[in-house]
């Protein structure tokens, strides 16, 4: 399948009073048509900043994309004019945000907000846009969709609002849907409903998805490929099955070790990763995971590892071969 998005060497920094925060440090990935890419990592590892940089939604100042490219349909999103990127946002690449409570404007009706992308990007009348909005709401499983167009966000529950959010992001049938932790603010049963909904819509509409989460469990059933991020780097990147059966980077291994598994028999203690995530105030010149890594060797402290091929379509950024414990 054809590649629709290719991000290379993306670097984003924030100027703050304490110094420059190196939030994203050269991230590269690509996305094929209809494919689902999961980006996993703990809070503050640069997942959201990566996708927001792509769509230029980083508040600037203080944020700034300092290097890299994001090719979409032969155009570099990072170098596009404001007008060009505006036409892509919401119509071809759209986003679903984490907190459905705060991501809607409290004083505008749901119908207005859901219809808005269509009104902006295509020459339809308001009535047509509202009709389409009602269809979309019905599609994501809002009962009495037509009547609810005139309701305000506070009249919806959290799960319903996230459905509305998804309807809003898909109303222009985008090629790429970026879901930035869409289930984090919801309780577990609602999470499962949302994930099922997105899967169904993906099969119906055929868009590609970038799904950001810190929950490896959700990604397992949803993504085709997974990129694990740490300290502003993608430290491991693999097809989903390969990653779960054959994790190679010590951080990925740690993450998986901290998850309860139903498919492995026998009683096993869950492990945790010692230490705290790095403060990204210094330019990264050594492996950001080294301070927490039990495999770390001298080289990890002096040089940042590049991506090593460790399997079919599987890369890991680590100086140590964790299978053998030897340096590469």
């Amino acid at each position, binding site marked *: 399948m054809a590649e629709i998005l290719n991000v290379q060497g993306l670097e984003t920094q924030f100027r703050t009073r304490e110094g420059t925060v190196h939030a994203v440090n050269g991230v590269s990935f690509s996305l094929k048509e209809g494919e689902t890419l999961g980006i996993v990592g703990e809070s503050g590892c640069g997942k959201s900043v990566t996708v927001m940089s792509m769509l230029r939604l980083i508040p600037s100042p203080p944020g700034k994309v300092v290097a890299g490219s994001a090719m979409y349909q032969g155009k570099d999103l990072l170098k596009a004019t404001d007008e060009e990127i505006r036409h892509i946002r919401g119509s071809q690449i759209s986003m679903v*945000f984490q907190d459905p409570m705060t991501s809607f404007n409290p004083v505008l009706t749901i119908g207005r907000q859901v219809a808005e992308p269509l009104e902006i990007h295509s020459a339809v009348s308001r009535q047509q846009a509202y009709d389409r909005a009602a269809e979309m709401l019905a599609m994501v499983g809002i009962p009495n969709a037509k009547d609810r167009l005139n309701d305000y966000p506070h009249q919806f529950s959290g799960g319903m609002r996230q459905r509305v959010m998804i309807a809003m992001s898909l109303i222009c049938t985008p090629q790429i849907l970026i879901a930035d932790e869409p289930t984090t603010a919801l309780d577990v049963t609602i999470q499962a409903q949302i994930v099922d909904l997105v899967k169904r819509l993906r099969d119906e509409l055929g868009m590609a998805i970038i799904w950001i989460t810190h929950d490896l469990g959700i990604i397992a059933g949803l993504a085709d490929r997974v990129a694990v991020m740490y300290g502003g780097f993608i430290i491991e990147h693999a097809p989903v099955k390969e990653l779960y059966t054959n994790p190679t980077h010590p951080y990925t291994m740690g993450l998986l070790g901290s998850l309860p598994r139903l498919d492995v028999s026998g009683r096993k203690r869950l492990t945790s990763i010692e230490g705290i995530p790095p403060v990204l105030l210094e330019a990264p010149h050594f492996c950001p995971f080294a301070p927490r890594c039990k495999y770390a060797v001298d080289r990890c402290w002096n040089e940042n590892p590049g991506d090593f091929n460790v399997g079919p379509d599987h890369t890991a950024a680590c100086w140590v071969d964790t299978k053998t414990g030897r340096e590469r």
Partner: protein
Amino acid sequence: MGRFVVRRLLWLIPVILVVSGITFILMHSAPGGPWDRDLSARQVDPNTQRLLNEYYGLDKPLWRQFVAYIIGDYNKDGSFKCGLVCGNLGPSYRQRGLTIQQILFMPPEGKNFFYSRFGYSIRLGVYAMLFAVILGVPAGIISALKQNTWADYISLFIVTIGISVPNFVIAIFLIIIFASWLHVVSIVPRSWDQVDVWILPAIILGFGTMARTARLTRASMLEVMRMDYVRTARAKGMAERLVIFRHMLKNSLIPVVTMLGPSLAALVTGSFIIETMFGFPGMGRAYVTAIGQRDYSMIMGTTLIYAVLVALANLSVDLTYVLLDPRIRLD
């Protein structure tokens, strides 16, 4: 909604009672009375004073006077004279033959309501308000959008002056600059029908409110700008101007609009210093004069009108809240 309004209006009754009680006590604690303190004029002889007191009921005990003011009392001839409960604010003790209602609300011959004392004060208050809003809201929005630039700092400078300097001090400076030096406005107008003589009093009166409006607009705009839904709007591909006008403005103006109701009441009722400085024929100056002259019923009447205005302004805030913010429901 209807029930809420009725309930709030009923609350006016205890408010008026308490306000009039306090005013009554304070007023009568001040030494002197309506007939004996006008040093500029010939003193009224004691016998006449006694007759006047008797005529107006000022010789009765204070509690009786208060009851007479609120409910009413029997005249000498046995007829009942209704008080505040009938909407009767009583006769003025100093302006012969006029009731308080006539002094405050009756326009001169052949003019409309807006030429009464109350009307003049309302007009001045509204002009001051317009000045405050037309300048204050855009200034606040621009300062927020251009936070920490020279535009923001200039507006901050003016706003700080407006908040910290009392308006009569600003008034003196502006009078010196624009009237004495530049001669662009006259401060002793022959007639208040001219437009230009309103400019200075309105600007001075509205200056503090303008500053507070700008400050509040800026603060609430800055808060709204960081909201998630603004990011959502941008992610939809909305043009920045539309993001500002459709998604930020309404949200950020909710607190501002709710401040404006009480501000208008404060401008209409709080203009007595400016009215006195400019010799303005409004209610505020009449109020100050009445206090100096111990014109008891005039003091009571004006205070109560002010109290009602403030109460209505507060009610209007609650009602505008409902219009602006769909999350708020009354009762």
